[in-house]
């Protein structure tokens, strides 16, 4: 699929979180994709070996509906967010955490900087 410089210019124009923007593909045969939020200019990890990071991600109703390079698609999104080249990946899972104990610890006095017995007072 062919991509032109015009496509990237449009991407850069909406780089600062524009509202209700449409990204037009230069191709007359582009498919339409409607999303709540469109993330652009990212380095989006896909986990596919040997494939470059994706740059565009669309989210609707909290669900990722598209990840790719945006080629050949017309996007209409309520909100467009530029990732400014930041890396995007799935969230981490901590499989052993004392959650509330940690929370109560964060709610308590922090004595890690008490270098002498009297520093806490």
């Amino acid at each position, binding site marked *: 699929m062919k991509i032109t410089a015009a496509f990237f210019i449009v991407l850069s124009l909406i780089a600062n979180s524009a509202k209700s923007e449409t990204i037009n593909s230069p191709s007359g045969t582009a498919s339409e994709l409607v999303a709540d939020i469109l993330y652009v200019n990212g380095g989006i990890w896909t986990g596919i070996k040997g494939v470059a990071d994706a740059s565009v991600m669309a989210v609707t109703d909290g669900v990722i509906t598209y990840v790719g390079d945006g080629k050949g698609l017309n996007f209409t999104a309520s909100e467009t967010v530029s990732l400014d080249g930041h890396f995007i990946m799935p*969230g*981490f*899972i901590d499989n*052993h955490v*004392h959650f*509330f104990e940690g929370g109560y610890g*964060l709610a308590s006095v922090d004595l890690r900087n008490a270098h002498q017995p009297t520093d806490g007072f």
Partner: protein
Amino acid sequence: MWEGKLPHKDWIDKQTADPPVFVIRLDGHMALANSAALKLAGINAATISPSGGEIMLDAAGQPTGILKGNALNLVLQVIPKPSDEEVLQAFELAQNHALSLGLTKVHAVTANPTETSMLDDFRLAHRRGKMKIRVLVYTPIEHW
């Protein structure tokens, strides 16, 4: 740090006075109790250390305030149950910390036998619409 010494209740008794104070080490396996907390927990020179724990004693056989391992439970079990608002505050602090590190899901496990309300506490956060993170709650069967 602290000339290699473990803390002693004498370090804090004068300033903390009547309110019981219990300072838990970051890893949760050791803590310092002031004299008021020791008294509330019924810990004195005659108290036998529980299995898997130690009530540290000084040369004169008196508790230093340092409790190790399962001995922490002696104090933890006399701490009043936190209010719903305190539970939610701890929840949100923990949740925000987790999210700030890129964690989107945690597997929550109890830290000690006195932590009997973990599942209910997550349910409270859920009912109040506070949950931003996914949680797998490992609940001891006796707390179900």
